[in-house]
């Protein structure tokens, strides 16, 4: 029996190895026939194409392919991070709204979830992109959605804070506030363990974190200068702009993922037994403390694992950027492949990047799961 198992596995391994060798030898032959040199040498060559948006890292057509791909990677992370934050907020709100006792609100939330989950993300992205580029007016007749926030078919123009020396000090104050808040919370916990007196760590912490920068800001005479977008010629200048591609991609990813997160949040809250909150109330815990100390920790145990996989999905889905022309990693790697013919290397780069992200997140996830798992429970 054992010998047969080993023989079968060796045969399987040999078959897989043979197939891989066969494919590799074909590929080598084909590459030679097409005169494509393999290897990553092309990365150092001049890219020669412009990229529509390259924040944080200056880029021009004369830069190398490697730099172009780095710009794409930054763009992917930019969309993914903003999308994750917004989707979590919207998803939590919608998920709680579905549980609301208000009939209208819960039906509205249900409708949102059903609609968004059952239409492909790609269709939603095309739809949003069409709404922005085809149905919004040109910059001259731009809609002023909020004061100094303009919607037009060139994207969204909005005011930004003009840099001021005080801002750096405010950042320092924020960091100091955070450290002080942590120290205060630790001291509070020790005191509670010793004397039983509760310490309002959340309130004091918030006051420190928000109060210190605010004090610096007011102390410096509240230097608030906004760079407003102004219409110049055919487009807006000054202030910040979100391109239609970025707006459609972030909006689409956010709204789509939020529908899935809403369901996860709802299931998480429902998973906590009613007896838990009843027991907490009968112990005399207040409503707030019951939520924070009893319900939330148990709900989070159910929520966090599927939530992380939604974050991963959002990051992977950001690769749909290529369909609406947002220069993310996949889109730039695709351009690179088309220009250089280095298909294998291009796809290898895409896959390596996403695999690194996925595997490190799931490693992190496993560690977290082990930490929050019930003591004594298996897995």
């Amino acid at each position, binding site marked *: 029996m054992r010998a047969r198992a080993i023989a079968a596995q060796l045969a399987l391994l040999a078959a897989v190895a043979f197939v891989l060798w066969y494919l590799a030898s074909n590929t080598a032959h084909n590459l030679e026939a097409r005169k494509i040199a393999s290897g990553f040498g092309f990365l150092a060559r001049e890219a020669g194409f412009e990229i529509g948006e390259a924040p944080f890292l200056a880029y021009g057509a004369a830069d190398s392919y490697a730099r172009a791909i780095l710009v794409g990677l930054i763009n992917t992370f930019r969309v993914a991070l903003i999308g994750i934050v917004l989707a979590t907020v919207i998803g939590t709100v919608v998920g709680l709204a579905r549980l609301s006792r*208000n009939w209208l*609100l819960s039906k509205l939330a249900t409708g949102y979830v059903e609609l968004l989950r059952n*239409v492909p993300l790609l269709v939603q992205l095309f739809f949003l992109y069409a709404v922005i580029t085809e149905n919004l007016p040109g910059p001259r007749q731009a809609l002023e959605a909020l004061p100094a926030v303009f919607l037009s078919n060139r994207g969204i123009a909005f005011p930004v804070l003009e840099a001021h020396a005080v801002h750096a000090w405010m950042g320092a104050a924020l960091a100091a506030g955070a450290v002080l808040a942590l120290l205060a919370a630790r001291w509070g916990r020790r005191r509670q363990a010793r004397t039983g007196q509760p310490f309002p760590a959340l309130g004091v912490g918030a006051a420190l974190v928000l109060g210190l920068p605010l004090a610096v800001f007011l102390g410096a005479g509240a230097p608030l200068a906004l760079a407003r977008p102004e219409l110049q010629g055919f487009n807006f200048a000054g202030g910040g702009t979100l391109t239609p591609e970025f707006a459609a991609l972030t909006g689409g990813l956010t709204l789509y993922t939020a529908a899935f997160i809403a369901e996860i949040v709802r299931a998480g809250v429902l998973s906590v037994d009613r007896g838990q909150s009843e027991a907490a109330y009968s112990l005399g815990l207040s409503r707030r403390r019951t939520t924070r100390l009893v319900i939330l920790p148990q709900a989070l145990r159910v929520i966090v694992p599927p939530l992380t996989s939604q974050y991963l999905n959002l990051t992977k889905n950001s690769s749909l950027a290529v369909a609406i022309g947002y220069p993310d990693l996949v889109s730039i790697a695709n351009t690179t492949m088309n220009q250089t013919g280095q*298909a294998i290397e291009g796809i290898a780069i895409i896959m390596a990047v996403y695999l690194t992200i996925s595997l490190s997140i799931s490693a992190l996830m496993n560690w977290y799961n082990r930490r929050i798992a019930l003591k004594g429970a298996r897995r």
Partner: protein
Amino acid sequence: MRWLRENLFGSWPSALATLAILWLAWMLVPPLVEWAVVDAVWSAPDSRPCRAEGAGACWALIAEKHRFILFGTYPYEQHWRPGLGILVLLVLYVASAMRRFWRPALALAWLGGLALIGWLMWGGFAGLPYVENERWGGLMLTLLLATFGIAFAFPISILLALGRRSQLPVVRALSVLWIELVRGVPLISLLFMASVMLPLFLPEGVSIDKLLRALIAMIVFAAAYLAEVVRGGLQAMPHGQEEAADALGLPYWRKTLLVILPQALRIAIPPLVNTFIAFFKDTSLVVIIGLFDLLTSIKVALTEPAWSGFGVEAYLFASLVYFAFCFAMSRYSQDLERELERGRTHVLREN
């Protein structure tokens, strides 16, 4: 009245939310209805009426282009063939959803149905002129990709799920490798791989057409995701079943086929349907490698200068079609879950 008080104005925040929603509806619904129904252009030979001042939604685009959207570049006078094919597929879907038909004859019905569809789509004999599959397109192609993708991915996924739980280290390692690698990368990268790398893998002179290449990528992708769902079903099975089969001395494959899989797959049906939904939505990604599915034919229809600029209407229509299929499947999966749940608790009570 009482219902209103309890469900809409139960508390101050609730009353405020109700009022806010009503106000939003008051602001948004009338202009939307005006755009979508009252001022809409329902039929027109070209887009001129749509571009007139004050015109609403241009549904004329759909009316004018619906044949192209549904059937792609399939020869116009032969459109009844994919039309009939879609009908056959729909009948098969509905029949498979009914538990009454869950028996071996269903598999035969599928084989017969798919053979019929193959004959309808390709033709070439018995009076139907041959149509090469480069000309297949539209909704039919979307349905075919989804159906064949699932049909081939599902058996592979069962093997992968069994492999991942196998005692044999090589089998387990290969299964884990497949599942985790595929789940870690976006589908687009697999589709790119199929469209640009697959030709390099093959010996000179051999080529497979675009449709088949995309289908292979979709199958590899779906198998990995389905495998995890099947594994969930395997894990949810009570240990006693496997131990009982071992005690009876059943060898591995008979134990798996007769005892474990029938029960594990039954548990896994609702999440399997959810994965089918996700896969059905994912077929839309073939637009990126230029395969002519429903979404591509809509995009192509929009590139015609006469109809450009009506993307909103076109994509609303696409959403409607996808929604109809996905919503039906998700409702079905929810009902089935409830029914299976009821069956299980009932059995427990009897014991």
